[in-house]
Every structure is written in structure tokens, then in C-alpha cells.
């Protein structure tokens, strides 16, 4: 727990990505200057390499001590126990032991003991009450390629990715969102960078957030909305409208433990099927998933590329583990980023029977099947669009069945066609492997670790990690067919596994764990070995859920 002086003194010695708990109360001008800071390090971004928790320790602990009736001077001391309580929460350690220790240690000074105990609990509860996110992500910096590095959290990388995509496309960035853990930090980060022309709109709710983003998209901006958990449910209807309007829109879901409010401060991967099917009617859209904190940058850019090129809402899946975790990131060469061309409509695209030239908003590009994007402002391109079914081409309201069927299949075909515009499945395979471990999202590190361990024992195991979840890469079916066993580890009850089974009729083996944390390498290794030794023939083809009541997993 640091004040400015301490921070100044120790920050250099801290490994990048370390967790820093800061006593904000101590960060007034005076102390800052004393410590030799010009700008406030909490806001000038110089701590972006660390997971910083800002906590009003002094105020809270003085409160506590007051209640316990000890002298202000002693209060100072309690601060450390507050910090200890907070850390216990962050790393989900029980505080009972510590409490006992305090009771013995301060048996002589009941008041101080009381104050310290209260401070300990206050710290622990603060983590819960203020929804501080637990257990941040740490990849042991393996051998790093040469280059310039920075430590980023997934949420920061996502925010930066959006800013980069906006500048690549020349589109003004508009974020319409409503705060929710663990997505809020993207709003916080973006709202700092107005010099990029970024507009952040804190809406009255999630529906308004995505609605405003869609309105901005209609106006020719890069419309983005961010949320988590219950918030994504509320966006379903407007996503459906965006599918029907065929406008670019980015929906970012930072998954957390569900269902309902669930475990707001723990991670999970259980929104995949919701992202696929969570809208009424046939309402397909592309899904992209980030796999590491720094990969959030690239994933955000890719999601924007697809949204703009195909005039479609895109869902980007991240999760609490990526969002709050940090890792060293080798800064990309901006020239390597894909070009993103809004290609706004500029002129009439259809000739009426009587020869007059008109603009039809639903004439498609033969190749991408995308429709023209014609923001207001251009004379002659005036047009009306809406959520009712539209006539193929003219875009006028159309009620006839055959047109509806054609439009329904066209919307589906447009999204399916993206399969040919994304890279083939990347498989890490020392040839001859019989088992493929395939995952998506934040389990990347854990799966890699498990695969390495298995290989270290001399087993041949292949790994693939999907970034595009809808559509799948064109070659995925063939890839899966090459292996005798396909193991699918997920922090849910087997959602990707279901998609693969339905799509490719492959008898995948679903390895699931739903404990608010990623897999441990050991567990992953065990699951892999079990496949190789062929000991997994449970009817359900599911590992770790043999006992239907789930009691077994304890």
C-alpha cells in the first residue's frame, strides 16, 4: 500500500505487471510535490504497466479506528491490516488465520486489536463492495523477442485498439456504454483521450448505450458499445436491429461469472452461445475472441475491420481475466495493421425504369454481399431504413414471403462468407499428434502450459486456439478431422464443444471447469494425458462433470 513517496521509491524495482495498491487519500498536491511528482501518476498513465487499485485507505481506516475508539496516531498502523485484508480478497485467501494472529499479537492492547481486526475486515469487504476484480492474469515473461515493450491490461489494449482502428479507418470513434464490472475500465480509458476525437457517452442503461452507438454508426461514425454479464442481455434487441439495418457496429462483451448477477468479480467464458444465438429470429453476426491481454488490441482492430467491411454488428468477446490481467506487449508496427476503408456511398447506384438515377440502400457488393453505407449529408442519397423486412435492392418495406426468404439467406450468406476473409486455423503441431487441444479466449495461456507439460513428458499433442468463432476458419473441419481425439477445454459447460459438434459432427471431448478462474496447468495436463491414454470413454464425453449433481467436483 503506497503513498506518493513510497511509490516513487519502489516503482522501478517492481516487476512490470505487478499489482499496486495505492492510498489515494495520500495523493493530494502537497504529497505529490514532496515526492517529486509534477503530474499525478495515477492519472498520467505512467502506471499503465501495473494493475493499480486506488483505495481511500486513510479515510476508511480512520473511520474504523474511530469506531474502535483508538487514537488517530494508532490508526496509521491499522492501514497495513486494511491492505492485508484487501490483498486477501484479491487473491481469494481467507482472513480467519490473520485475524487469530492479530488477536494473539495485540491481546495486550484490546483497542488496537479491535481497530486492526476491523481494518482487516474492512479491507476484505471493500474488495467485494467496490467490485475489485480478483486474481489478475500473469504470464511469466517467456523469452521475449527483441522489440519495444509495454505492459498492458486487456481493457487498456482494447481501448487502444479501438483508437487505432478509428484512425486506420478515419472514422470518429463513439462509445455508447453503461458502467459495469469488469468492462467499465474501457470507458474510463477512452474518456481520457479526447484529443483523438473520441466521444464517450455514459448512457442511462445498456439499451441506450448500444442504441446511441447504432445512431452514431448510421451517421458514419465507428459505433462501439461495451458491457458484461446482464448488460449483454439488454443489448439483444438492438443487435437484431443492427443485423437488419446492416450497419457497422461493435459490441464488446467482457464476460464474467453468470448466470444473472452471478460472480461479477470472477471470470468465465459462458457467453459464447448467447453471442451466437441470443437474438430472436435468424440474426447472424461475426464473433471474434481475444486470447491474451495484449491480443485484445489486435482483436479489436480485426473486429472493426469485419464490421466496417461487411456492414454488420460484430461481437468481440473478452473476459474479466483478460480485462484486468497484464502482460508484456511488444508494440506493433502500425504500418502492419490492416487498412480499413469505410467506402461510403457517394452516388446513385440504380436506374429506374424511367431512366432516373436513384440510390438503393440494399444493393449488395457481389463479393462481400455488403450493402452501401450512406451516412446523412450527401444530396441524392436520402433513404429510409428500418427493422421491418426490406425488399432486396430497394430496401423498401416488403411483406412478401419469397423476398423474406431471400433476404434471410442473404444475411446468413454474408456472414458465412467471411470464412474466406480470415486466416486459416493456426495449429501448433509437432507432426504425428493424435490429440488436438482446441480452445478460445483467455484459456490460451493455461492450455499452452498444459500442452507444454505433456510434450515435456514426450507426448505428441497439437494445440489450436480460435480467434474467429463465427464463422469458423474455412479449413477448421479438415483440421479437426486429422486428429483421433479433440479435447475442448472451456471455462463454461462446453459451449465451443457444442458448436464444433453441430458444425462438423466431430465427437469432441469437452473439458470444463467453472470456478471463476482459468485452468491450472496441472489440471490441463492431466486432462490431456487422460485422452492420450484413452481412458476417457464416459458416455457423456465430458470430463470433470461425471457426477450429474456436480457434487463430485468438490
Amino acid at each position, binding site marked *: 500500500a503506497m503513498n506518493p513517496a513510497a511509490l516513487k521509491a519502489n516503482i522501478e524495482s517492481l516487476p*512490470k505487471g505487478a499489482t499496486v495498491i495505492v492510498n489515494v487519500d495520500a495523493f493530494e498536491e502537497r504529497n505529490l510535490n514532496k515526492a517529486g511528482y509534477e503530474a499525478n501518476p495515477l492519472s498520467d498513465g505512467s502506471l499503465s504497466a501495473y494493475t493499480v487499485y486506488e483505495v481511500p485507505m486513510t479515510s476508511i481506516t480512520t473511520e474504523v479506528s474511530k469506531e474502535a475508539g483508538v487514537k488517530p496516531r494508532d490508526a496509521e498502523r491499522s492501514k497495513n491490516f486494511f491492505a492485508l485484508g484487501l490483498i486477501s480478497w484479491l487473491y481469494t485467501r481467507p482472513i480467519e488465520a490473520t485475524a487469530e494472529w492479530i488477536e494473539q499479537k495485540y491481546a495486550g492492547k484490546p483497542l488496537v486489536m479491535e481497530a486492526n481486526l476491523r481494518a482487516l475486515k474492512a479491507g476484505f469487504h471493500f474488495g467485494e463492495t467496490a467490485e475489485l476484480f480478483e486474481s489478475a492474469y500473469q504470464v511469466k515473461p517467456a523469452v521475449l523477442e*527483441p522489440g519495444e515493450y*509495454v505492459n498492458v491490461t486487456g481493457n487498456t489494449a482494447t481501448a487502444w485498439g479501438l483508437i487505432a482502428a478509428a484512425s486506420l479507418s478515419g472514422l*470518429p470513434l463513439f462509445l455508447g456504454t453503461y458502467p459495469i464490472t469488469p468492462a467499465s475500465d474501457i470507458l474510463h480509458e477512452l474518456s481520457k483521450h*479526447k484529443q*483523438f476525437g473520441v466521444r464517450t457517452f455514459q448512457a*442511462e442503461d445498456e439499451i441506450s448505450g448500444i442504441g446511441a452507438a447504432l445512431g452514431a454508426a448510421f451517421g458514419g461514425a465507428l459505433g462501439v458499445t461495451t458491457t458484461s454479464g446482464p448488460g449483454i442481455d439488454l443489448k439483444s434487441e438492438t443487435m437484431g436491429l443492427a443485423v437488419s439495418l446492416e450497419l457497422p457496429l461493435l459490441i464488446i462483451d467482457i464476460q464474467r461469472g453468470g448466470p444473472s448477477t452471478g460472480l461479477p468479480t470472477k471470470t468465465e467464458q459462458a457467453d459464447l452461445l448467447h453471442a451466437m444465438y441470443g437474438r430472436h429470429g435468424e440474426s447472424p453476426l461475426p464473433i471474434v475472441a481475444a486470447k491474451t491481454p495484449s491480443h485484445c488490441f489486435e482483436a479489436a482492430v480485426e473486429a472493426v475491420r469485419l464490421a466496417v467491411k461487411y456492414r454488420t454488428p460484430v461481437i468481440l468477446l473478452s473476459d474479466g481475466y483478460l480485462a484486468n490481467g497484464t502482460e508484456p506487449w511488444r508494440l506493433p508496427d502500425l504500418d502492419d495493421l490492416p487498412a480499413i476503408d469505410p467506402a461510403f456511398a457517394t452516388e446513385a447506384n440504380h436506374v429506374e425504369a424511367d431512366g432516373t438515377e436513384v440510390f438503393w440502400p440494399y444493393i449488395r457488393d457481389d463479393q462481400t454481399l455488403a450493402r452501401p453505407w450512406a451516412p446523412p*449529408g450527401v444530396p441524392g442519397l436520402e433513404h429510409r431504413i*428500418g427493422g421491418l423486412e426490406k425488399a432486396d435492392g430497394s430496401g423498401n418495406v416488403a411483406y412478401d414471403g419469397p423476398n423474406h426468404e431471400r433476404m434471410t439467406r442473404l444475411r446468413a450468406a454474408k456472414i458465412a462468407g467471411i470464412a474466406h476473409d480470415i486466416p486459416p486455423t493456426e495449429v501448433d503441431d509437432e507432426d504425428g499428434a493424435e490429440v488436438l487441444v482446441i480452445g478460445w479466449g483467455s484459456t490460451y495461456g493455461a492450455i499452452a502450459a498444459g500442452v507444454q507439460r505433456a510434450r515435456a513428458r514426450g507426448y505428441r499433442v497439437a494445440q489450436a486456439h480460435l480467434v474467429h468463432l463465427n464463422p469458423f476458419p474455412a479449413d477448421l473441419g479438415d483440421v479437426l478431422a486429422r486428429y483421433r481425439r479433440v479435447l475442448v477445454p472451456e471455462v463454461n459447460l462446453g459451449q465451443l464443444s457444442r458448436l464444433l459438434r453441430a458444425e462438423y459432427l466431430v465427437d469432441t471431448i469437452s473439458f470444463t471447469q467453472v470456478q471463476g478462474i482459468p485452468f491450472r496447468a496441472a489440471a490441463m495436463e492431466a486432462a490431456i494425458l487422460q485422452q492420450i491414454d484413452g481412458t476417457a470413454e464416459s458416455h457423456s464425453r465430458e470430463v470433470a462433470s461425471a457426477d450429474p449433481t456436480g457434487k463430485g467436483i468438490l
Partner: protein
Amino acid sequence: MTDVAHAPEDAVPVPLTTRKDWSSDQEVRWCPGCGDYSILAAVQMLMPELGVRRESTVFLSGIGCAARFPYYMNTYGMHSIHGRAPAIATGLATTRPDLDIWVVTGDGDSLSIGGNHLIHALRRNVNITILLFNNQIYGLTKGQYSPTSEVAKVTKSTPFGSLEQPFNPLSLALGAEAGFVARTHDMDRKHMMETFRRAHAHKGASFVEIYQNCNVFNDGAFEQITGKEHRSDMLIPLVHGEPIRFGAEGQRGVVNHRDGSVEVVEVADVGEEALLVHDEHRDSPGLAFQLSRLSRGPHEPTPIGVFRDVDRPEYGSEMARQIDEATERRGPGDVAALLRSGSTWTVD
């Protein structure tokens, strides 16, 4: 990169237009006799007078009979989803200050499912003009009562009569910090055009309630006050700076009592100087609110016209200002620099 920059305002002078230029090629599909027709006519006839461009005009709507409006305007437009038009308009208005944005909505669309977006758009003072077609019924879904229907209304969903106190749309808007609040009705094109003109001229969120007759599911809802023969006695025209009076000979008026109550009186009884003088620009919405309560429904003398017209900072411009200031101070954004804003280190 802060704004989409293809609105040619400065380039060409605004072309002269007629109503026809503002009418789309789509056949109007409201029921014959529906009040929506006269509102559409009023808007289409007003447009040429406003000196605005079709390509810079957008009509947004939710769902409902009223919400079909955008299809009939030869401008940019979106028929979105039920109740959400104000939210969608907020995103558009905030990123495109160059546009003229109209939101057309019904009493169910904006006061039932869309109530929250409406009050927040008003509070934020987003630069949009909201036309609420209040027919006190759900027209499109074939006649259920709405949040503005009178108590005890018998409808498809309330065969024994409805139980709910209706909203007074103006009171709600004023309670939600609206800066421009007005009321007009579908039987008086001149008054509609004048009211819309005022609403359009106001910078920020303008809210206009339009009494609209649904001759199929709620015929005659406003007949008692908007009917030609009743108007002079039942409609109280509000005129800024003027004593509030009405009646064929202006024989009736409105007073504000010391106890804080507002009442309709015979001018003869109290004397002209006792009358309340209308003030659209009063900083506090208190007076406008009092006037919004004068009538308990379209069967008592009811004020029409502009209740409140007060300027407040407009949301979109304020956001643009923050962007300009930040750019001013820091220079335009540089992505490469952003990625290095944290502490970087090099591996070689």
C-alpha cells in the same frame, strides 16, 4: 477525425424547395381520416420555409403508427425499434452536429416503453426535436390503453376499465428538466407549423406534444377541446409576455394565488391586471409546470402553445468543446505516442 465531414453546407446555397420535394415516393398507409395525415402535411409544408437541406435532415422513429412517419419524408430516416428512438438520436446528434434531427413518436412509444430514454434525452438537452403524437391509445397493436389514456378506459386489454392515472406528458417533461416544452393539435395546421418552427429553432432538446385523433381506436378523444366550435372556449393560447386569457371575447383568464395554486377565472371578477403573465423564459420550470396542471384532461380548458423555452448548454456541442479543448492542449491524437504513454522498455 472528430466529425464525418461530407455535409456540403458551406458549399452550395440551400435550394428552394416545395412540399413535394419533401415527400417520399412511398404510399401513405395510415387509416383514412387519421390525424397523422394532417401532422405529416404540416411538417412537409413547413420544411421549405425552414431553409434547411433534405440531405442534412433526419427523421428517426420507434415503432407504432406515428413511427411510420420517416417513410413518408424524402430525407434520411430510420424506423428503429419500439421506444428507443431518443437513444439512437442521441448517438447521431452527438456525432453529427451538422444535422437537423427530428424524432417522431407515439404516446406508447415514448411514454411507455421509451419513457426512460425520453426523460434522459430531455435532461441531457440533446439537440433533437421530438414530436409526440398523443392519441391516448396504442394504434398499431389495435387499441390497448396507453400511459396517457384516461382512467377507467375500456379497451381490448381492459374490458373492465383501466386503473392507471395517466401521465401528463408536459408535466413529465418539465419534471425531467426539459428546456423547450410545447403543445399543439392535429386540427390546426397553422398552430402546428408555428409550434414546430419554434421547436426546430430551439437549440437542444425540444418536446412537442401533439393531440392526435386516432379515428379508428380512440375517435374523438380531443373533440371537446379541439373541435372547431369548442376551441375558443376550451383552448388557452399561451403567448409570451401576455396575460393568459381566452374565450371568444377573451373573457376568461388564469391567475396565480398567494397559496401557490393556479386557477381559471372570469376576467371580469379579478380584473385584467390580476392575470398571470406568461413567461416562456423563466429559469425555473415551476410556472410552466403549474400551467401544465391547469387542465386535468382534454375536457377542461387546456393551454396550448409554448410552455417553456429556456436555453441550456446543448449536449453535443459541449462534448465537441471538450474535444476541441483537449486537442488544443495536447495536439491531435497520435496512436504511436499513445501506445508509448505508459512506461516502455526494450528487449534486444
